[in-house]
């Protein structure tokens, strides 16, 4: 859906999406890195299990909810990527204790 402009010279940051290494860039938000990855990063809703992708990218819609480093329901559009970050696509509601 999205591609990176060639002028982007930012350093690479390696993150892991459901255990698979993905190259992000310094300064990407988690949601931007996921959308740029080309992978299937659709979460599913807590109510009906419908697939969703980020909608607003500015912190208001909560369709970017994702599990980051073991913590569920994080707004991926507000969290910058960090080297080695473990991201899990959240299916359904947040699990107890995560």
């Amino acid at each position: 859906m999205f591609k990176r402009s060639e002028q982007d010279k930012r350093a690479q940051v390696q993150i892991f999406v459901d255990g698979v290494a993905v190259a992000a860039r310094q300064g990407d938000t988690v949601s931007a890195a996921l959308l740029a990855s080309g992978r299937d990063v659709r979460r599913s809703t807590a109510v009906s299990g419908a697939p969703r992708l980020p909608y607003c990218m500015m912190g208001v819609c909560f369709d970017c909810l994702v599990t980051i480093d073991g913590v569920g329901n994080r707004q991926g559009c507000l969290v910058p990527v960090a080297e080695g970050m473990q991201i899990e696509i959240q299916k359904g509601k947040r699990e107890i204790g995560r």
Partner: protein
Amino acid sequence: MSVAPKREDYDVVVIGAGPAGLAAAATSAGAGLTTLMLDENIGPGGQVFRAISSTPVTDRNQLGADYWVGADLVQALRASNAEVIHRATVWSLDRNLDIAVSIGGASAFVRAKRVILATGALERPFPIPGWTVPGVMTAGAAQTMLKSSALVPDGRTVIAGQGPLLWLLAAQILRLGGRIDRILDTTGRGNYFAALPHAFAFLTSPYFAKGLSMMREVKAKVQVVSGVTELAAAGDGQLASVSYVAGGKRETIPADLLLLHQGVVPNVNLAMAAGVEHRWDDLQLCWSPVLDASGNSSVAGIAIAGDGAGIGGANAAVVRGRIAARAAVEALAPAVAAKLPAMAALRADLAKAERGRVFLDTLFRPAPQFRIPSGDTIVCRCEEVTAKDVLDSVAIGATGPNQLKAYRRTGMGPCQGRLCGLTVTELMAQARAKTPQEIGYYRLRAPVKPITLAELAAVPKSEADVKAVVRG
């Protein structure tokens, strides 16, 4: 890394680092007031100047001169003594000007003598059939990715809606080598006539020439369909097609990405939760706070600047920020206020920045069918409530948005009504033959953004707090 506020008390706390917040904090701190700036994003800029300090888009022409204005505002803030904390989510503000803010998973509490809310705007809900399907996003979302990560649409891309941002985004996508297959312009034919009496003011505003040249730039490269009266997205788990009606003719085109936009509306959650009185704005079709000429709200000590005070655009936001900050300085350090630009001069700047706004508001006033959905179209994205669900609830006695919560949980999901509130108000108003003002809005409360119970439980408690809830 998370940094807690250095003090417990501040003269001024500014919430939001967009144009209004940046200008307000720099003015307030520059006048010697202890100033704390709290902002939810990774860096300064808000939405319009997003990633201004970090964007990988280095060719300045691509984002345009209006964007780079933000760099000067950030520089002015950094040159001041304001304490700035990013990734700080304010989740409570009350009438005592006590503020709770979540930073790195822990809450901190500060008190202000004056609060300047600069929480800006968000994109108006665009509840068409299929707007929750993956691959449908807002135009603002695409612009955010473009500015902060130099990401541009790659697959079959359709942009639909109306308003200045839509054309700016299209121009920026094209300049960065992105793909746009078609633009579907939903501006109502009647709006052109309605806007005509206000055209003169717009012709003399700086937006006119820029807007025109941007539309020319885009129209030279992309097929633009105007007069679109119906719009729907479809796809099984992923966007496959966009269908629309223009000139009475229906067409369906394959698409991977649909970017929607029909203007922006004030982000009211924090202000409303603090008890600030809002009124329905019949022209801008949204809730706007009731403010005096200095931006002071109905709650003593809370001022609102920027688009959160009613949509006025970035230039107006900067001036409103300065006005609100000057009013704070007048109240807290009158001797220093004399050294700041006079209020009369600032108000003249504001009138200039707001010139042509009525024309834009009238021309780009979204049509009813794009604001008030019907049938199976989702109204509340979080709780997955359709227009029919809402109308069925009205039929059995739901009178307004707050009653509707008990029937359908609308507005009770994580977004707390940000993406459904206006739709619910207008839908219920129409169904009950009332005005939006009569129907009202969700009663908003802290926490205005979700925090974990663990974070809440870790909040320091006084002996009196514990006594209040412990039995025996």
